[in-house]
């Protein structure tokens, strides 16, 4: 009897499997196979400029990566970028979402308009900020000089620390709307009854936020953090366009370092190893977030 029921269920589900088959094949070809292939290559010496060594490498490339100061510099730089981006985007994302959650005239228009930066392609965004940050002809220096804030143009991308801040700013301008949107959707699920009760009990704005809104928004906050962490860890385009990893490797994020190793130095084995290590780091961070989410 059970077998008959199982067969019936399978037959009912069969069309669904058939329909998703083409998409699964594409996903396998474009995602799973390259990932597996990269994993296999990471255990091989595959340096086009030193073919005599090509062959099985075992864990040697992993050891080489994990003992390489340039790798750890890029991890540090990426970490700085991730932490700065997440902090700024979460803070302002929440603030703007709270404002947009209020009732005011033109709210619909503002909610729509705030998404505009997100529609700008990453490369266009990078070129735009490149020009705004141009030391002699950029908008930012012109405005600051007009307001008397600076007397001489600032080379925003000429100093490692300032260049990193500018990259965070450029990324934030584009990605903040996404954070706002997600927090705004989370705010819709906050119980109006709890908020009302809090008001009646005399809780002020901050108390309502920290004790009622924030706890109820924990799941969506974690989703945003997971999503933005994985996205920021993979940042590439904006660094490629604005600074090329400089000055003095001050913006050499891990994905750019991997790209350089693989395609400029033609060391495919080491590049594959770096990719797997990055994937591993992102995976561990995701697991940590999921654990926190589960407990929440």
């Amino acid at each position, binding site marked *: 009897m059970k077998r008959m029921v199982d067969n019936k269920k399978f037959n009912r589900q069969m069309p669904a499997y058939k329909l998703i088959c083409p998409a699964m094949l594409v996903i396998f070809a474009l995602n799973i196979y390259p990932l597996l292939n990269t994993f296999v290559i990471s255990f091989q010496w595959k340096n086009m400029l030193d073919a005599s060594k090509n062959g099985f490498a075992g864990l040697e490339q992993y050891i080489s990566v994990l003992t390489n100061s340039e790798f750890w510099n890029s991890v540090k730089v990426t970490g700085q970028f991730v932490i700065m981006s997440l902090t700024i985007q979460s803070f302002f994302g929440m603030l703007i979402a709270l404002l947009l959650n209020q009732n005011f005239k033109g709210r619909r228009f503002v909610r729509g308009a705030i998404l505009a930066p997100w529609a700008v392609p990453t490369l266009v965004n990078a070129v735009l900020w490149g020009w705004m940050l141009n*030391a002699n002809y950029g908008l930012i220096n012109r405005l600051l000089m007009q307001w008397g804030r600076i007397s001489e143009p600032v080379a925003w991308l000429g100093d490692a620390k300032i260049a990193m801040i500018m990259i965070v700013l450029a990324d934030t301008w584009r990605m903040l709307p996404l954070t706002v949107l997600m927090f705004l959707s989370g705010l819709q699920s906050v119980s109006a009854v709890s908020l009302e009760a809090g008001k009646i009990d005399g809780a002020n704005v901050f108390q309502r936020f920290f004790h009622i809104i924030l706890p109820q928004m924990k799941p969506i906050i974690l989703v945003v953090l997971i999503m933005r962490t994985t996205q920021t860890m993979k940042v590439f385009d904006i660094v490629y366009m604005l600074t090329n990893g400089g000055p003095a490797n001050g913006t050499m994020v891990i994905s750019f370092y991997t790209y350089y190793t693989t395609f400029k130095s033609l060391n495919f084995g080491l590049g594959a190893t770096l990719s797997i290590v990055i994937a591993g780091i992102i995976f561990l961070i995701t697991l940590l977030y999921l654990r926190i989410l589960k407990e929440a």
Partner: protein
Amino acid sequence: MKRKLALLMALALTVSLAACGNSGKEGKAGKETTDSKAGTEAEGKAEDKPEKLVMVTTTDHEDLYSYVADEFYEKYGIDVDIISLAYADVHDKEVTMALGGSQLDILTVDTVWPGEFAKSGIARPLNEYFTEEEIAQLYPAFVDEMSVGDDIYAIPTMTEGKWLFYNKEMLEEAGYSAPPSTYDEMLEMSRNMMDKGICKHGTAWAASQAEGFVCDFNAALYAYGGEWINENGDFVFNSKAGVDALNMFINSMKDNTADPASVSYSDRDNLDPFMAGDTAFVTCWSYAYDFTNDPANSSVAGKVEVAIAPGQGEVEYSATTGGGGLGITSSCKYPEWAVEFIKIAISYEVQKDVLDKFGNMPILKRVLEDPEILKDNPEFEIMAKQFDYAHGRPTIADYSSWSKMLQLNLSKALAGEVTAQEALDEAVRISNQEYK
């Protein structure tokens, strides 16, 4: 009905997922492939003839090589698919195509790639396909750049270098009748013009962490009497000459003689202050002459002249070579036909047109010595003279990796994190340890 709708949606999903892959547009300013079809079917051996040849080139040279491809088709009836990309993407495209097994017959080879292409086996030596007479027609310095030892891995198709461009009007206003011939002179003239309010800064360097600054440092290193590698094969660019050269850049930015924002400029960005009339000098590639004299781009159009890159002390002049050539992949099934394409590219008729139609500097000596051509383009006499003082960057198999290391150390010195001596000592240490 529901099943048909579901099937339609699944097909749409599959198509859209497949379309999310590479759309065929490459690079920051890439283009789709272009076919060259012109003229009639030429006579030639029907057998052993390829259906087409595939080449990769930069967007800057797409017009030139399309022209060559038209000539090639007219003569042999063979199509050439030209994949053109922004310069920054050409290397990666060629590497991935050649190593990935895609058809790629003709390579664009920049001056610093022969070592890498030779060692990785991407390019094949071309000595057997060209006679000594054919090679002798080309400027030797550029043939040497395309060689690894005695093997020629690409045939140079144009000359290139970084010249000193200057605003003639500014110099005249300051009372100068000739451009500087040394760095000291250039900086002194700059300070004088700045004091008189003629310009904001003397010059702007291409001093960002990129290959552009390696080129400028290369010229300055030789100007100050230094060299990259001595006769024993040791890297020695941390000599007094190297340190003096690097300090020249650093100090000029510190005292504002050069635009302090130069640390954020690529070798294209540093043209902007020059074209805006803020600087009196700029070093740049040959295209800058037409570019800065074009009213569509430049507010100093018509005022820009060219001079040989300056020397220093006893060194009369010193310049960086550039340009590039065409190579043939090891995987090319029809190298003889690819060779014919290259021969057309370096033929006298095409090289004359290289100059007239495309504004590139030709590689054939007799084109630049032609009095008719010099009559119409007097600046080429000056520009061609620079080839006698030109120096290439070192030929290293893993040039990209070496250059990246050097760029980092130079950048640290420019940022003031370390002294020039410390930066060059570290770069030399790593060079001798890993790249000798």
